[in-house]
Each structure stands twice: as C-alpha cells, then as structure tokens.
C-alpha cells in the first residue's frame, strides 16, 4: 500500500474524528454533570441536521450560517426538555431514565419520518466538490471546514466551563451537589442550562455533519451508538476525553477500513470499545472511581 494512501486516509479519519468528538461532547457534558445518559442524543442531532436542511432549502441559509440559529434552537429544546421531563427523572432508577429518553428518541425519529420521509437528503454547496492539494495530500474542503469549526466549538465549550460564572457553578454541581445546594446555587436551573448546552453542541455537530453526509431519520440510531462508543473510549464525563475518543474512533475506522476491508470498518470501533472496557474501563481520560 502506498504512503500516499495512508497519509490521505489518516488525515481524513482525523478530520472526521473531530466532528464525531464534538457530537460526543454534548453527551459527555450532560452525563458528567447530571449522571443522566441521553439516549435521545443521536435523534436530537439528526433533528438538528433536518433543521439546517430546512433552513437551506427554504431560506437558502448554508449550514455554516445556520449554525448559531440551530445551536440556539437546540439549546432551547434541551432546556425545556430538561425542565419538563429529565428533571423529574434525576432521582429515578437508571432503567426508568433509559426508557423515558428512549421514548423521546422514538417520538423524534418517527416525527422526522412523518415530516421528511425515509429518503436521504443533503445540501449541495458551492464548495461541495472542492479539495485542497498539498503534494500527494488531498484534503476535502468541507471536511477541513467542519473539523476547524468543531475544534473551535470545543474550545468555546471548554472556555464556558472554565471561565464563566455559570460554567463554574455547573462544575460545582458536578463536583459536590450538596455543597452546591448549601451555597445557594439554583441546581435545577443549572441542570437545565447544562442539558441546553449539551443539546447546542449536538446542534453545531448536526450542522457540520449535514455538510459531510446526507440525512435520513434512521441515521439517529447509528449516531447514538457512535456517541456512546466515543464517550466510553474517551472517558464518560470527560470533555477532553470525548474529543480524544472521537479522533481515536475516526482514525481506527479509517485505518481498519484500509488495512482490512472498508465494509468492516465499524468492527474496529466496536473492537476498540471492547478493548478499552477490558483494559481501562474508565476510558482513556476518565477518572478512576
């Protein structure tokens, strides 16, 4: 196999992995703070992809320009969902949380099926077919843009948790819930903001992914599963871990596909998941409990 092939495949895997990482960030942030696993994660992202698609088809707004609108919309959806439903489940047993969020997932997927039908739909941008050439290295322009924006969004999220008052308060809730309540933090509101921020991450990832893949309602199951694999590999609750997990999975799929058989590439992400669970169950950047 020529070096050129590996160079291109590794770079492609790295760029795609960054977008995967951003998608998993939302899942990880919600779990890290509230200890709730959002089983409607992939469905929310596909809903974000459809929102961006509608904005493109109806208003001609490109997914990149639609990014703040979709992220804002998803923040609101996440906030309201937490207030109305998830908040009531925080004290409930895990299987109740699982069933309730699975129910939300089914409602979203079937709603999208009713509204948009089962066929794949995508956006055609002026630069959809463009690529950058650096000698033997060819970089897909859309993938580069998506990865750069994903990196920036991840940086913003980190800054939010590290430097803003509300971000610090959310971290306080995650570190010591009783302590947070004692000092008078409005935990319910902070949880709602966290769920909203997690959903906004998904909104950004949805807009970026729409530039890379065509959307159809059944995509949601794939992405929920992928999100879980990434956060488990990276470390549940760790933001850096989610990003690293995304990159690792992106690379594993790319290299596995090129070394063995492309149609078996998913096998490598699942294989990695099993390996991590066996040798480092807390994930690459997770904390040992």
């Amino acid at each position, binding site marked *: 196999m020529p070096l050129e092939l590996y160079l291109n495949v590794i770079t492609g895997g790295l760029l795609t992995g960054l977008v995967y990482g951003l998608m998993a960030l939302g899942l990880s942030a919600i779990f890290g703070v509230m200890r709730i696993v959002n089983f409607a994660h992939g469905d929310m992202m596909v809903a974000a992809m459809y929102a961006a698609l509608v904005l493109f088809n109806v208003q001609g707004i490109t997914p990149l320009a639609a990014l703040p609108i979709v992220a804002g919309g998803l923040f609101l959806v996440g906030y309201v969902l937490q207030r109305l439903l998830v908040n009531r489940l925080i004290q409930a047993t895990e299987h109740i949380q699982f069933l309730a969020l699975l129910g939300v997932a089914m409602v979203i997927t079937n709603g999208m099926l009713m509204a948009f039908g089962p066929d794949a739909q995508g956006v055609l941008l002026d630069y*959809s*077919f463009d690529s950058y050439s650096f000698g033997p290295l060819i970089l897909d322009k859309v993938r580069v843009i998506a990865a750069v924006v994903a990196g920036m969004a991840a940086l913003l999220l980190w800054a939010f948790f590290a430097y803003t008052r509300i971000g610090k308060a959310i971290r306080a809730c995650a570190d010591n819930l009783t302590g947070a309540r004692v000092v008078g933090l409005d935990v319910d509101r902070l949880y709602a903001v966290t769920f909203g921020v997690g959903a906004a991450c998904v909104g950004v990832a949805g807009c970026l992914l729409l530039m*890379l893949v065509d959307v159809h309602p059944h995509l949601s199951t794939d992405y929920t599963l992928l999100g879980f694999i990434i956060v488990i590999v990276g470390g549940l609750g760790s933001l850096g871990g989610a990003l690293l997990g995304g990159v690792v999975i992106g690379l594993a799929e790319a290299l596995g596909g090129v070394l063995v058989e492309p149609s078996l590439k998913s096998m490598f992400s699942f294989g990695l998941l099993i390996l991590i669970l066996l040798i480092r169950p807390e994930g690459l950047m997770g904390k040992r409990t």
Partner: protein
Amino acid sequence: MSKTKGTIASASTPISRRAFGTGAAAGAMLLASGMPIRSLRAAEPLRVGVLLPRSGHLALIGQACQRGAELSVPILADLGHQVQLMNADTESNPDVGRTQAEKLIREGAHVLMGCFDSATTAAVAQVAEQKGVPFVINIGADPAITEQGYKFVFRNFPTSVMLGMGGLKLFNDIFQATGTTAKTAVLMHVNDSFGNSMRGGIEKLMPKLNLPFQIVETIAYDPKARDLALEVSKAKAANADIHMVVTRLNDAILMVREMVKQQYAPMGIISPGSPGMYEKQFFKTLGKYANYCTTNVPWFDPNQKLAKVLEERFEKAYPEESFELNIGFTFEAVLIAADAYKRAGSGNPQALAEALRATSIADRVMIGGPIKFNEKGQNENLRSAAVQNLDGKPTVVLPTESAQAKPVFPMPDWKARGA
C-alpha cells in the same frame, strides 16, 4: 399514487340483494334472447392482476413498476386495447405474493403480471401454473423460473445469466467503438445480496468472455455507509484504468462525489448492470459530474415510436421520477397480455396461453428483436445497451443500431468539465 380510469380495486365488492336480483334478471333475459356470448366477451376489458412490491423493502422499485402499469392503460387504449388493472401489493414478501395471486384469480383476473423480485415471481409462477392462469413476468431474473416446464408462465426479461453476459460483453464493444482498451479495473460493489451476487457473476463470467482487462482490486462497501471516502481512497490507490461499479442510488452519488473530491479520474466509470447512475436524482445532485458514467442495462429503444410515446406520457405524469427500465418492462408485460387477449378473442386461460405462446410484437419499447417466447416461455430477443450519461441525460451509445450518440471513452477529467 395517481388514479387511473381503468384501475379497479382488488378488494371484493359486496353485492347487494337488489343488485343481485337485477343482474340475475338481466342474465336470464340475455340467455332468453340468444345473444351470442362471444361478442359480449370481446367488449369486456382484459383484467390484469398486477402483483408488485409496493410496500416493504422493495417499495421504491415496486412503485416505479406500478407507474409503468398505470401508464399502459391509456396508451394501450389508444392502440385499441381495453385493459383494467387489478392492483395487489406483494409487500416484498413471497408468501403475501402467493396469497394475493390466489385472491386475484378468485376475483376474476384473466392474466397475472409481476412481480419484480425473483422469489415472489417464483411463488406466483407456481400458483399460476396450478390454477392454469397465464402469468407474464415483467421483471425477475432467476433462470430457474423458466426452467420448470411451466405452460402458463412467460418472461419478457433477461435471466441473470443473460444480464451478466450482456453487461460484460458491452465492455468489449465500448473498447472497439472508441479504439481505446483498458488493461485493469477496480470493482467497487455494495456489500448486500444483490452486490455480492453480481460480484460472483462477474468473477465467474469474466474468464469465459475473454475480456482484455483484469480486476486488480475488489472493494465491498456497507450499503448503509455514511460516506465512501475511505473506499474511494483505496480504489484510487489501485490505479486501475476502469472503475467498475455495482451500486444503488445513494451510494452511487456518494461515490462519484468522493471521486471528484479526491481527484480520482479513471478512464471510465462503468456498471455492468446496476441501478443508480441513470436515475434523475443522480443527475440532480451531481450536475456536470454525473456525465460520462455508463451503465450496461436493458434499455428503451430510441428508434421505437412506442418508447417515445411512453416517455412523453411518463414525463407529463411523473416529472420528478426517473424514466428507467422497470417502467419499460412493466409496460411491455401489460402490452404482451393485451396483445394476446386481442388475438385469443376471449379471456379463456387456455386460449390466452396459446395466444401468448404465439406472441410476436415488433413495435415494442425496449431494445431487442420482436417479443417472442421460446418453448420454455422465455423471450430470448433481449439485449443490454450501454447507456452513457451525456448532457445530463442517460443516452444509448451501444449497440450501434439503437445508439443516439457515440460512446465517450476515456471520459474527460473532472476539472475539464467546464461550468
């Protein structure tokens, strides 16, 4: 789905006591008057039991076939054939197909037509033979169906062996017509039962056909793949002359899009017989990059007047849908049944089967000689065409006698496609 005047529902209609009484009285008067029954029958339209997978995993293709059947009613009426469709959904399930076929026969279908997939077609063929009702197969490629010694089963569609041979032989014809020969190919195929059976067929038939090129790499991809970047990178690295593909629609779009991005421009992108690259959505999504892709499939004969009529009616009725071979073969199946009914002069199954056996239809829509059936009920006058996308339209480039344009091989580089 649009309603067509000649269509009747397959569900049985309850008969009221009054209607029964009126009918019985009319029947008695008719018998008493001594009016010849035969002239009454001649005025009666042919009832065609249409069995297609309009739901389930084959729904999209089943619905495409249904469009061909629906359009046949007004077009055949213009040609003096009165046809009524009795529509039944096989739900992409052979058992449902069998039950629906029995139901259609009970409800008075003169002839059955369908069923797109080989498994359902084989099941319905058994029912037709058992009940002694003629069955015209629109699509269904399993060779075994016409090897059973059936007397009531007629197929106007190439067997999978005919399809494979036809599709591969055309590679040589393309090389001869353009004076350019390829030495190597990479085969990229969808990893499902269709893709794998095509791959098996290609590997088996290629040595027999003495083709001048060798397959240097075979790449299977997941039918649900979100993108094909990796697969196309691997194909590019093989550095072959031809990119041979077995695709469906969405993956064909993903593949070509990725080929453009990765600046991978082989001498040709040619399918030995699979859907995707001749479909409207392919042109709509890829624009100028859809051009020069070639598919070797049975296709409409541009020289046939009836093909033009069908295309005009189709574009008017379904402007958003692709005018492709499923529509043509379904139309021809109804045409064959209507032609036999006219010659038989009655809906008697034996007479219809005899008339079907004696079929000879020169004015048809697909490429090939006159429609005729051999002793097994198979039409052997069917031929694949090389259909190349030129100026945003699937265009017949081979065989020469049906060609609308000359084949372009090698295809121009992606960057040389202009605006």
